[in-house]
Each structure stands twice: as C-alpha cells, then as structure tokens.
C-alpha cells in the first residue's frame, strides 16, 4: 500500500515536470544554447559579475559618458557641425575665448554663487520637513506623506516653473492675497528677480535634498537622542551634538545633488530670472542658438562649467568628510 502511494506521488511529480517542460520557460531551460550560456555565467563568480554588469556598463558608457565625451571632443574643434566644403581642425581657441574675455566671467561666477546660495536655502527649508517626516510621522503614514510630496514631480519642470509664474506675477496669487488683506496697494514685482529664480530652483530641487536627508534621519536611532536627554542635553544641544553630526552624510549627498542640478538649470532662469540674473547656462545656450560655427565654443564653455562644478563638489565633499571625522570644528 505504501509502495503504491509513493509510486503515485512519483508519477504525479514526473507528470508535473513533463507539463513544465511544455511551457515556454521549461523549453527555455532545456534549450541547449541557454544551458551553455548559463554554464558560461556560472563557471566563475568573476565571469558571473562581468556578464551581469555588461548591460549597465554599456548603458552608462553610451547614454551617460558617450554624449559628454562627444561634447568634450567638439570643444577642441573649430567647426561643428562641419558645413559642406569646410574642414575641421583641432584648436584650443574655444577655451582661450573664455579665459581671454572677462564678459563671460560674470555669468560664470554668478552661476556658482547662485547654485551655492540656493543649495543652502534648499537645505534650510527641507531639513525640518525631512526631520518631521522621519521622526514624528508614524512609519505607517511615512510612505503616504512621501507620496504626497512627490505629487508636484509628476509634471515636468516647465509646467512647475509656470506654476511659480502664476503664483508670483503682478496678478498672481501672492499679490492678490496681499492686496485683498490690505497689506499692499500696488503689486510687489516678485517676478524676473533673483528671488523668483531662487524660489523656482528651490521648489524644483527640494525633493533631491529631501530624500537623502529623510534617509539619513530615518536611520538615526531614537535612543541616541534619549540618551543625550538623560544626560541633560537640551533640544538645541541634542540637535547640534547628535542629530546634525550623524546626518552629515545625508546633507552632503543632498547638497551635492542640488548644487550640480542648480548649476545646469536653463529653462527656470530663462523664465523666472531677470536682466541681472543671467546664468552661464544661458550664455552656453546662446552659442548653440547662433547659426554658424559656435557649437564648439558652447561645448568648451559647457565643459568648463562641468569641470568647475565637479571641483566645487569635490572640495565640498572633502569638507564634509573632515567634518564627519571631527577634523573641522
């Protein structure tokens, strides 16, 4: 009897396997090229890593580094695109043009200054939000709150920039409110100033700051602050001596992301900025709009901005790293 039961079980298992063999995946697993490929991958962990990493590496090379390498290449030429009957030569003139003409320095340094200032403003504004979210909202509601904060990011940068225009215009919501409560008689000209541009950039980059901060704060055990409180530390001291130093990594990541994004913004400064807020991205775009052989100059200027932003970021990261280690008080 028991023999019969075991035999039936084996028969059922064999039947299941036969059915599986008839499915797509079953046939794939038994397909000899697939088996050879699987054997090749599984032969060594090193090979396994290389094959699995192949697609991401190709993606990064072709989609991320490729265009940048192309841009750097173009920046060393005297003509691009090359018109019929013309020849392309290598040159450093495009870089010399930046260093030789001071009119380009103002938008360049203004961009770095604006990016640093707006990054700091974003940090100051988003830290309390991230703190509240990570420390005071129940874990059950945190995802819901994050989702709510993500809603503005469902639409594109231009639409959100126009939303700022609707808010800050002379007939915008802010001026209407101030007039309706009798605080002003004439509209305050918020638009086309460094304020409107800054507000736009802070609004557009806030999430890039918020998420690393939230991540750092969320990982911080509550017991640390409780221990500090037990030892007599006040709220400000607990924040300054415990919370802030232990979230330096989040601050560092958030600031780096926001700073790099802010240096490259184009549409927002164009739409919200004024005559005295021209940033370097607008100067660069100007070279690409002009008909003729100006693309190489635009590419050289873009390379200069890119390298400068990286240098500032590296210096900032070093500073943050030193702060983390306690080398800088």
């Amino acid at each position, binding site marked *: 009897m028991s023999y019969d039961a075991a035999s039936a079980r084996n028969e059922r298992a064999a039947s299941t396997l036969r059915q599986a063999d008839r499915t797509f995946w079953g046939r794939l697993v038994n397909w000899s090229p697939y088996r050879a490929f699987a054997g090749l991958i599984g032969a060594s962990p090193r090979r396994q890593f290389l094959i699995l990493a192949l697609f991401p590496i190709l993606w990064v090379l072709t989609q991320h580094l490729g265009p940048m390498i192309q841009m750097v290449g173009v920046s060393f030429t005297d003509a691009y695109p090359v018109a*019929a009957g013309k020849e392309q030569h290598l040159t450093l003139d495009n870089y010399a043009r930046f260093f030789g003409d001071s009119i380009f320095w103002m938008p360049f340094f203004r961009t770095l200054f604006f990016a640093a200032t707006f990054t700091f403003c974003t940090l100051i504004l988003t830290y309390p939000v991230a703190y509240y979210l990570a420390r005071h909202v129940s874990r059950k509601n945190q995802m819901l709150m994050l989702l709510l904060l993500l809603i503005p990011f469902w639409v594109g940068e231009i639409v959100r920039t126009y939303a700022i225009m609707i808010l800050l215009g002379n007939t915008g919501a802010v001026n209407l409110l101030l007039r309706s409560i009798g605080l002003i008689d004439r*509209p305050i000209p918020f638009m086309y100033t460094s304020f409107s541009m800054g507000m736009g950039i802070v609004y557009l980059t806030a999430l890039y700051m918020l998420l690393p901060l939230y991540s750092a704060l969320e990982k911080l055990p509550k017991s640390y602050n409780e221990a500090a409180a037990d030892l007599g530390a006040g709220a400000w001291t607990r924040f300054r001596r415990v919370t802030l130093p232990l979230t330096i990594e989040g601050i560092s990541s958030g600031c780096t992301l926001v700073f790099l994004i802010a240096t490259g913004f184009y549409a927002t400064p*164009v739409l919200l900025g004024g*005559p005295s807020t021209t940033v370097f991205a607008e*100067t660069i775009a100007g070279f690409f709009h002009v*008909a003729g052989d100006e693309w190489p100059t635009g590419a050289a200027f873009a390379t200069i901005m890119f390298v400068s932003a990286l240098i500032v970021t590296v210096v900032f990261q070093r500073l943050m790293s030193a702060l983390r280690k306690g080398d800088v008080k």
Partner: protein
Amino acid sequence: MTNLSLNRRHLLKAAAIGSVALASPAYLRRAHAAGGEVNIWTYNNFVPESFKKQFEADTGIKVNVRLVDDQGKQFNLLAAEQPNPTVDIMTVAGHRFLQFIDSDLLAPLDTGRLKNWGNINPTFSESDWSTIKDNKWGAPILSGMEVLSYNTDYVSAEEARTWDTLFSEKYANQTAYIIQDMMSIIMLKMGYDGNMVEYLDKPEEAARIVEEAKQFLIKHKPLVRKYYDGGAEIQQMFVNQDIVLGHSWNGPAAALINDGFPLDMTIPKEGSYGFVYTYNIAKNAPNADNAYLFLDAILSSPEIGAAMTKASGYISTYKDASNHLTDLEKKSTSFTDEELSTLQFFRAEANKMKYGLIDPAVEAIKAA
C-alpha cells in the same frame, strides 16, 4: 466683456476654419493621390490645422510638423543633417536666406512647379531680397515687423510714438525687449544703419556704432524688467501685467489684441525693421515632389493665407487675404501710412560682420 470677445473670436475662428476647409478641396481634389509624407520645420500656427487635415485627406500625404523657435537652431540642425536631411520644407526669414544659401543648405525654388505662385502679393514675391544668385529661394507666406506694443490702459498712443518711452523712468521695470533685435533698432534710433550695410567697408565705424548702442542699453539696464526671447513670453508678461509696454514682433501682439486684451502696437517715429517668413525647400529634401505639392496647395487660396494670419497674428503675403479677416483682425494687422513710411526690411549683406559685433555686445549687456 472679455468672455464676450473670446466667444465671438472663437465663433469667427470656427467660421474661418470652415471657409478654409471649403476653399481647399477645389484645388486639392485635382491633386493626384500621391501618398507618402512631407516633413516641415516651422513656427507654431504657421500651418493651419484645418488646411493640414484637408491636405492629408485629399492627397494621402502625411504632414509632419516639427516646431522651431529660432532661425539659428534651425540652421544648425539642418547643417548637422546635411547631406541627408530629414526635412523637406523649412521656414526661413528672408534676411537669413544668404546664410543658408552660402552654406549650401537650400534648394533653389522652381516657381514653374507652383501654379499658385501668382497668388502671392508681388511686393513680397518679386522684391529684391527674394532673388539671390538669379534664383528664388522661398515662397513668402507671412510678414512681420519689430513693433512697440503697449497696454492701452496705462500707456497713451502719443507716448508710444517714440522708442524713448521704452527707456523712460516713468515705466521703469515695466518694460521688456529682445536685446539682439533692440541693438538694430537702437542703431536706427541713433541715426545709423541698423542693417550695417553702409559700414561693410568701414569695420572700425561699425564697431564704434555697436559699442555706442551697447553702452546705451547698459545704461538703461536698470529700467528694464525682462530680456526675453520668444513671443509667448511677452504675451505672458502683458497678461500678468508684469509689463505695460515692450518691444515685440507684431504676431504675438496681434494675437493678444484679437483675444480682446487692451493692447495696441505701433511703429515708432524713429522707425523699425520688417521681415518676411518664407517656406523653403531643403537641399536634398527626401520628399521634394510632395513638398512642391504642399507649397502649391497652401498658396492656393486667400482664405488659407487669412487662416495663417488669424492663427499666428502675422500679416499674410497672399493677395486679398485681408478680405477674409474680421474688422478687429484687420486692425491688428494693419498700420498707418505714416508708420509704414519709417519701416525698413532687414537685409542680409552685412550679417556676418553685424552679428560678429552684436553677439558679444549682447553677452556684455547681459553680464553688465
């Protein structure tokens, strides 16, 4: 009041669309069912939607429109694609022809293949700028000009008769302009040739004049609210009442006037510049036959020209197109003889020298 005028405009627009649809088939029915596609680079509203649908239905040719917003970008795109461009028809401003022709990007236009060439007003089709190297290079479709637009609730017609009002303390931080275009206008206002053709053999004189215009704009920089680039931007600023007057192209201003906004425009007494948009066929166009069929179709009736004016605000180059405009549309696309007497057309002969001087000056003004 606004709602009433908008409704009326929509009603008139619907009537215009209907008339275009009615007018087109008479010509298009004669066209062979060619099939395939035609690729067009043009500005927003330059191909009336009703015409496009009718053309596609009658010929089987799919019309692919790619919107452009800048002549320079268009030039660079085409230069990058040659000798195998993806575009058949592009929209070049008349004063930019030379640059495209010198770079071998355009095909000469065979007007013999366009039965409706005669429907264009000869003022545009036969003018001196339209014939270069003994060839026609484009079919003029719309005409534009640099104007002073102003909100009639705040600025009087008398004040708007001079460009000086744009730089007055009275309207400080309530003005806007395109710097590159203003450089030509300022040179004209100062009594110089803004086209710089007169200084082709005098580069030092040209440099001095550009420097003078640059210094003028730098001096008046604290008074301007915004340097802008596109027509939609100045429309937005007028609607939001961020500005009350500004330099603009007539098209975007006319569109606001037709929407019932309290706006008017003028060519100030110091003068201004005009330009003509043309449809051109790209060299090595992949669908050249379809491109000619499209051009002949779009030139076939004044109603189509009027529809282009209604949609874009620019002035139609077609004979009798104004007969199909409403009184308000006629008003928004016409100027007095006194205004027109000071209007000149942009010229291309000195463009290389002119923009070689103006482009750095513009950067300097922005940086100042």
